[in-house]
């Protein structure tokens, strides 16, 4: 759940980064349109939170060039402009959702989760894998109905793996999803989290694909 936040306002960007981090997102924050495009070019993000009034390159132009380049990343637009025409233009240019300033932090987080869910092709808010249920909004994991206590990193790792169930995720992709820029990261941290998850949820849930990464098998519902 690595989000790229593009917001030129120092106070708002700072607050959003802290607030979304508190809601379980890994947030990278850039402050202009050019930097946003460069970051999207270089790395993988699961969603983009985009302010429209940006220096150097306008938000709508970022969005347009993103979509023109075939990038289908879910985009939530933040704007102070509430004219219907502005909204229509934003949505037509490929925004997936739209929030008008000032907005509520919880609503933003909920909408982001909904965006990610839709992007993954799911209607169900919770991730269900056999008798294992992960609720991204409540940040609660239950196994056979009983709550399992997980650290924040363990929860995020499990979510990323469950969302990509059936696919192999490389170490690099997982690390990108879990750690924000500047986070300290020791070489075997990922293995440690996987180890803890296996201990709490059973050893056969997360499979190691040697030399590549990890995978959670798909289950038929």
């Amino acid at each position: 759940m690595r989000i790229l936040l593009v917001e030129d306002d120092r106070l708002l960007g700072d607050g959003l980064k802290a607030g979304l981090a508190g809601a379980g997102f890994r947030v990278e924050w850039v402050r202009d349109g050019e930097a946003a495009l460069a970051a999207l070019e270089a790395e993988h993000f699961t969603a983009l939170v985009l302010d429209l009034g940006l220096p150097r390159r306008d938000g709508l132009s970022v969005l347009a060039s993103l979509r023109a380049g075939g990038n289908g990343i879910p985009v939530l637009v933040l704007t102070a402009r509430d004219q219907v025409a502005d909204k229509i233009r934003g949505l037509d240019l490929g925004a997936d959702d739209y929030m008008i300033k000032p907005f509520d932090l919880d609503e933003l987080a909920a909408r982001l989760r909904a965006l990610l869910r839709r992007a993954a092709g799911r209607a169900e808010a919770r991730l269900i894998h056999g008798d294992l249920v992960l609720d991204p909004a409540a940040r609660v994991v239950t196994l056979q109905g009983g709550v399992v206590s997980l650290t924040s990193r363990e929860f995020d790792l499990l979510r990323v793996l469950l969302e990509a169930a059936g696919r192999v995720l490389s170490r690099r992709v997982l690390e990108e999803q879990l750690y924000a820029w500047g986070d300290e990261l020791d070489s075997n941290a990922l293995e440690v989290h996987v180890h803890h998850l296996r201990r709490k949820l059973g050893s056969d849930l997360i499979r190691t694909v040697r030399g590549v990464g990890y995978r959670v098998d798909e289950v038929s519902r």
Partner: protein
Amino acid sequence: MSLTGKVYSLRRRLVALLVGVVASLWVASAIVAFQTAHGEADGLFDAQLVQVAETLLAIVVAGDASQIAHEMAEHQHAYQLPVAFQAWTRGKDGDWELLVRSAEMPEQLVSREKGFDEHDLEGRLWRFYAVDHDHGTYRVIVGQNHEARYRLAGEIALHMLVPILIGLPLMALGIWAVVGRALRPVAEVAAALGGLDARRLVRVTVPGPMPGEIAPLVRSLDALVERVGSVMENERRFTADAAHELRTPLAALKIQAQVAARSPDEAVRSHALTQVLSGVERMNHLVEQLLTLARLDPEAGLKADQRVELRGVAERVCVSLQREALGHGQTLEIDAPLPLWVAGNAWWLEVLVRNLVDNALRYSPAGGRVRVLVDASTGLLRVEDDGPGIPEEARAQMLTRFARGGEVDSDGCGLGLSIVARIAEILGARLTLRSGQCHSRGSVGLVVEVHFPVAGGNP
């Protein structure tokens, strides 16, 4: 525009005017016709008098006077000659003796002159013609009442007046209709104007062709509508921009407050609270600047009619901002050897200088230098900073509301330079922006100069 005088109907006025003019022309021509007819009748009747007199004389000379009387009576009866007559002969004693007369004639000699003569007879004006024969042996006087001539002339004049008496009301009706029709575009323009929506002004559109007399009015109205529309559009954009500018700091405040309220981490909480305070600071600055702009509105009623000493203003501003500059490790210098008197308003000038210096400090890096110069001899105020400057192509844009120097971190709200530009405009001062000369760290700096129209009393 307001209706100060009496309102009158163009239509009614035109009808009255036209009917009046036409009626007087007709009456004048009837008078002329009467006089002409009268003159003609004079000639005609005079000729008749002469003819009748000559004929009578011939008969009188040739024959019997009683025969004449009889014949004349018959004659008169048959031709209805409007002629009266006397025939005289000179007796042996040299007096005139009446031979014969028509009934209207008295028994005295009515005219002692030969030829034409006019005088009253029984209270009425007559015209006589007397003719003699045979060295005064016979005299025939024919006379005619003037009434006949008047009657004829009157009849001719009346013939001219009758059609107009019937025609005038018809003509008035016609003019009423025609004028109404001609004035229809005016009514249409009025209807088009009445239909204008004050919130959405569009050009006045009138169906059909437009008379040249009304077109300038419509063009002026269109121009006015356009100007008002552009002012309104400006205001609308400003309101939208202001809403936008207020929403972002509000959003920041809300998010920071939410983070502070729910983060379990003490460090995160305290950081967010600090940010909330800084956001309130910024909102405060923005609101102050908006109020300043509102006070610069011409309707706020401030006048630039004082003489203000600019050096003192600049010194006060620099002293008050000195602490802030020192806080950022910046140097704020002022070079103002002589007082400079300018026409204006103390508050405006302080706002202008404060915005310039404040801007310079905001955009200058830590450790940078801001220099203020007041040159009394040229009426110049110059504020020079160490900041990134403004690229030439962006300078005009920077003077508009809510434009910020894009590349730098600043808490500016984008109103400072537009406030300065507005005040300079009101004071008739010339505002120029240019790059500084030579600076380190790749920043070119910004030089803002305000050239004041110099008031009297400066050295």
